[in-house]
């Protein structure tokens, strides 16, 4: 961002000096092209689209920063190509997304986008992207129906499994690894939380031998979950699954522990944020969180760990949820540009139907025809010593 601002200021300064020159003497400044004769540097742009301000800003910033790491590494490694990451802040709001989309769709220098971050905003702009022939690779939109928004569409891609796969992965993990005999389900009544916990997970657990002993809802606007906590406490389950976001997950985990509930606390990607650990405090310890994303920590093995170190160096903090996916999504677009696909149509054709992307570090990335990722595996993390540590990938079970 700093970089592009600097460029802009430089451009303005150059323009002013040209104007001054033009006033004095007409002929000299007639043709000043930006192409230089030798050591030519080709300049291209890709865009991050998602929230940078508003309630969901934290999530968006981790995605933007994952993309930034990819772009900076790329520019470092390539002398003849300079890629700029433009940022478009939607606040994650489906109502604002189309207005913002007009900006990047009309900016012809932008070849592809990393994002949009959320499912709602993706739904809102997909027809526009399709029309513009602009390729999108989302690092975080997991709604199970996105691929069908534009039937036969080509723009849509994502580098992580969708919500339906997450429930499937959770069932696999619960039945083959954790093996609780009883499970209590709590959700926040949201589309996401209730959808995942009740409509997906509870439905898919029927007949597996894991008995659901309580289904409770909490009000995310309240701090008081004692009604749900009391019910869970007297049901005394082996594990509690919470469908919802990290703030409520933290409060719930804490209130459960304070009431003496020792069941394993399980939640999904909405809770995979340090905010959960901060909220729950000591009660977060041992909690297990699933995500279709592969969170990178500096303790992670191989390329994931290297990415985490590099992210720490460039950004100054640890990567978060979807940072890894953003890094992969960006690298896919960058590889396409290196490959000589330097217009929108070319890049779209390049991404379409990519299989087994070499650059992907989060997981095996192959795109199905509809833009979904082929892999359906999800990842589980456990809170250890106040940080998320990788627990298991469901593909390995």
């Amino acid at each position, binding site marked *: 961002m700093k970089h592009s601002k600097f460029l802009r200021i430089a451009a303005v300064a150059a323009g002013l000096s040209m104007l001054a020159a033009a006033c004095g003497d007409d002929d000299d400044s007639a043709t000043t092209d930006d192409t230089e004769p030798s050591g030519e540097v080709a300049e291209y742009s890709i865009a991050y689209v998602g929230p940078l301000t508003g*309630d969901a800003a934290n999530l968006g910033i981790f995605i933007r920063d994952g993309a930034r790491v990819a772009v900076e590494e790329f520019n470092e490694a390539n002398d003849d190509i300079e890629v700029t990451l433009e940022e478009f802040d939607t606040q994650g709001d489906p109502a604002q997304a189309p207005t913002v989309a007009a900006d990047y769709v009309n900016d012809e220098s932008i070849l592809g986008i990393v994002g949009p971050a959320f499912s709602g905003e993706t739904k809102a702009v997909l027809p526009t992207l399709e029309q513009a022939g602009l390729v999108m690779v989302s690092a975080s939109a997991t709604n199970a129906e996105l691929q069908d928004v534009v039937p036969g569409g080509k723009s849509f891609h994502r580098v992580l499994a969708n919500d339906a796969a997450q429930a499937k992965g959770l069932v696999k993990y619960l039945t083959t690894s954790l093996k609780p005999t009883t499970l209590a389900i709590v959700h926040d009544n949201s589309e996401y939380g209730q959808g995942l916990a009740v409509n997906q997970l509870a439905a898919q657990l029927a007949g597996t031998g894991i008995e659901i002993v309580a289904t*409770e809802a909490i*009000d995310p606007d309240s701090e008081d*979950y004692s*009604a749900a906590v009391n019910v869970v406490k007297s049901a005394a389950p082996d594990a509690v699954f919470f469908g919802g976001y990290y703030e409520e997950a933290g*409060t719930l985990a804490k209130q459960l522990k304070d009431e*003496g509930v020792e069941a394993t606390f399980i939640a999904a990607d909405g809770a995979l944020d340090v905010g959960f650990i901060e909220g729950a405090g000591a009660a977060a310890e041992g909690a297990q969180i699933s995500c279709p994303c592969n969170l990178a920590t500096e303790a992670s093995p191989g390329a994931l760990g290297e990415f985490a170190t590099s992210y720490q160096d460039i950004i100054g903090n640890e990567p978060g949820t979807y940072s890894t996916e953003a890094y992969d999504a960006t690298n896919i677009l960058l590889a396409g540009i290196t490959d000589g696909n330097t217009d929108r149509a070319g890049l779209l054709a390049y991404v379409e139907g990519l299989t087994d992307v070499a650059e992907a570090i989060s997981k095996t990335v192959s795109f199905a025809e509809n833009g979904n990722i082929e892999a359906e595996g999800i990842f589980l993390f456990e809170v250890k010593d106040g940080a998320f540590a990788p627990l298991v990938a469901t593909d390995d079970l």
Partner: protein
Amino acid sequence: MSSRELAINFSALVDDFWAHTIDGLAVGSIYALIALGYTLVYGVLRLINFAHSEIFALGIYASAFAIHGMLDITEPRAGLSLVLTLLALLITSMAASGIAALVMERVAYRPLRRRNAPRLTALITAIGISLVVQEFLALRYGRSRLNPQRLFEKESLFTFLGEEVSNDKVLVFVAAIVLMIGLDQFVRRSRLGRGIRATAQDAETAQLMGVDIDRVVMLTFLLGGLLAGAAGFFFLIFYEAARFNIGFLPGIKAFTAAVLGGIGNIRGALLGGLLLGIMEKYGAALFGGQWTDVFAFMVLVLVLLVRPSGLLGESLGRTRA
């Protein structure tokens, strides 16, 4: 099974009856403390001070700030140091909220009163102040939930009818009751309290008898603010969370509690708060947590249908020594 269906779950209520009751009493005593602020101001000015919920929120933020800024507490305390810490925090949040309430009265309400503005103007002003305070907190401290440090380890203190009662619930309940008895006695017995009662009965006559109305109004706001600050501190002990709009829901609940008990009635606020706290826990057990608020407001509607002036009637003025 979709939980959007309304299924009545009697066993959840019956099995955990005492657990729900204890939780209800604890949260109800917080509602009651806030409700007193609504009730006092209504009794004297016939004004619903909807910004009172932000006075409560400021109390929460004041304690959170004191925990991290002033006292720099980084781990749970015990023993004498805990008692001193709790007292210091209680005084801090009471002072912060009390001052905030005074400022609010001076800056926003008194100019309106001077001009004899219609009551609706004051109501709209209250909503305006509420938004200003919320946005101030949001801009200053962010929109996400803050998680202040735990002050003491929560553990079971004793067993009551088979239910373990934790120390934080006992502390909140007992302290709230003590504060409320203190307020009740203050209004009933002290000279300043007599001024409040006189103004509530008939402001004009009280003024003729030499009561300084401005001072009575300030005192009323101050008392409401002090109790809201205490409520904020107890809320923080109980839930260990702060958020820019955290006052809204407890504020509305407390207003409900005040109306339930009879707005303008101090003992009514206590009764209304405790009843509402218990009722909503029972409702949540019967119908599921997502129905907590629906049930609370349904109780209010039903009570008002039968007793429009609340359970104990509107009677700050009629309270006699």
